[in-house]
């Protein structure tokens, strides 16, 4: 199953490495990890997505809670949260593929950020599933570079 954790942490040095270390040390898997400051400069927010069995997901939550620099852990249910991811992707094109590429971008709601003689840089922000699908669709064009932010999530209501 998928575990989405929204974690508020103290915004100070060493906290990210503590959290990352916790996952590596205990063999927990990280699908994605996104960190940023909140409206309070001394608190950062992390969204951590992990795939594991139920017991491991429970353990992750408990171990996150155990960290002294973790202020709050919320486990988000996929259906009851909004999850978004942003991706920048550079794809090569030819005269033959150019128009179908632009069409695909328009269908998927992706934006063209830059065009050079041989490549197009595209931006998409959407749910993690759509971003993943879009990435798959672009494979046939020839992907040159990918940058993803990782998922950020927020509970509805």
């Amino acid at each position: 199953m998928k575990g989405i954790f929204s974690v508020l942490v103290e915004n100070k040095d060493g906290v990210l490495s503590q959290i990352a270390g916790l996952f590596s040390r205990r063999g927990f898997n990280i699908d994605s990890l996104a960190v940023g400051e909140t409206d309070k400069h001394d608190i950062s927010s992390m969204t951590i997505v992990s795939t594991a069995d139920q017991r491991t997901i429970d353990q992750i939550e408990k171990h996150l809670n155990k960290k002294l620099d973790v202020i709050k852990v919320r486990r988000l249910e996929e259906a009851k949260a909004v999850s978004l991811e942003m991706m920048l992707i550079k794809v090569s094109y030819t005269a033959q593929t150019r128009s179908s590429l632009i069409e695909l971008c328009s269908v998927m709601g992706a934006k063209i950020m830059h065009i050079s003689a041989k490549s197009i840089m595209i931006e998409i922000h959407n749910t993690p599933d759509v971003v993943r699908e879009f990435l798959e669709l672009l494979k046939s064009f020839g992907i040159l570079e990918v940058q993803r932010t990782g998922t950020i999530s927020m509970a509805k209501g």
Partner: protein
Amino acid sequence: MNGAQAMVECLKAEGVTKIFGIPGVAIAPFYEALYENRQQIEHVLVRQEQAAGHAASGYARITRKPAVCVTSSGPGATNLITALATANADSIPLIAITGQVDSSLLGHDVFQEADMRGATESFVKYSYLVKNVNDIPRIFREAFHVASTGRTGPVLIDIPCDVQRMELSKAFSYPEEIRMRGYKPSVMGNGQQMTKVIAAINRAKRPLICAGGGVILGNGEEVIRAFCEKNRIPLVSTMMGIGTVAKAHPLYFGMLGNNGKPYANKAVANADLLMIVGARVADRAVPKPEKLERRLTVIHIDIDSAEIGKMLGPTIPLVGDIRHIFGALLDAQIHVDTKEWLEELENFKHTTVDHRVFSDRLVNPMTLVQTLSEKMDDDAVYVADVGQNQLWSADNYVMKNGRFLTTGGMGTMGYSIPAAIGAKLAEPSRQVVAVCGDGAFQMSMFELATIAVNKVAVKILVLRNEYLGLVREHQEKVYEGHYSGVQLYAYPHFDKLAGAYDMAYFHSDSNDTLEEELDRFLACPKAAIMVCDIDSANNTK
């Protein structure tokens, strides 16, 4: 007041009167402040930093308060890491103060720089790198609080040399209040869960308590004893839980697990309700937790919620402090009739036949541990090292009203001698005996100097079989007797070593002289080494 003086003031405010360590340039300002306060805080100079950690561990376990160890930066600090890992695995509250290079040089790989926060991340409960001298009072207050509450454990304070020298910008004051928004251990135990626990006990026909090290760390021996006696509920213990009740207690059915009593394991196998209290359900105690989970009702009580469900999914989890929980359980309406169950357990106990065969050459290690612990004072401290000696000790130790200290979590060889020093310095009037093999002895034998200089009247009993015995046993059973790198031979000459450090020396090489020599060894008023020769053919199983 400078940072170093503030550090000492913090220790005084916490009531610290003894610390263990080795100085160096990076911690020199602190030692200068310590010099000014030498009437209030005694510094015990050990001979290697790991021993500072283990000695502090022994001290903490006897005083039941956090104990302090101090090292310099770089190698001094890294030498301490094994002791921190040991304390962390056994949940012993320590405050480790390590000197660090000047803050302006951090990250430049200068002489004796080691990233201690990074290196100890998984071996401490929490750590600090002090960058602002004015944070010292707050950090020390928090460190002692964190070390001694919730699931206790070691806390590291790494402090650059220049921060120790800097002046505080305001007058020193030790904060009363602690504001840590990410740290609020659950103590009381959830009310609904408590109701479920009480109902489960009332339903049980064959209830059993398994007491772990957390019972002792949580000062819960008395309340759990009272609960068992009131409701006639039997208990077994893990290795770290030895000492919850006396061995002769009619409700006690021994240590469980791989190295435990067969009748303790039989009790677990036949129970219909198992209450695991302050235990990790670790592999040595419960080899196949998934089997338990399927078969019986498991109540898992621990202060650390992350321990619950780690190895097995309990039927009823309950997070909280043992004294609160068992205090409430003691007052609860519980009616269980365990008469038949207790008779059955007694029967298991009396019909269990020990099939192990011991050599009739030299000293029988089982007889040795039994005789020694029977002869020791009622409230004596027995510190078992790691290896065959630990397993023979746990198996045969006769607990009266004393303490059984060992490292069941990390299993660090060489623990017993420095831990015994710490225990003895905590309560000099108590009899303290370290029991170790000749292998473990040599991992801490430099501490004989600490014993001699400080006139620490500890007793060291060495089981000499000239092997790293437990590995030898493993190689015999698993690797067809291919003994690889395990033979120690007849060194050192223990009599000469005792002489070199002004210690008394005793020796026994037969069961016939054992009692007499043990009497002399225990009666000796000063520090002493006693060597008992054991046939290396003796195994633990």
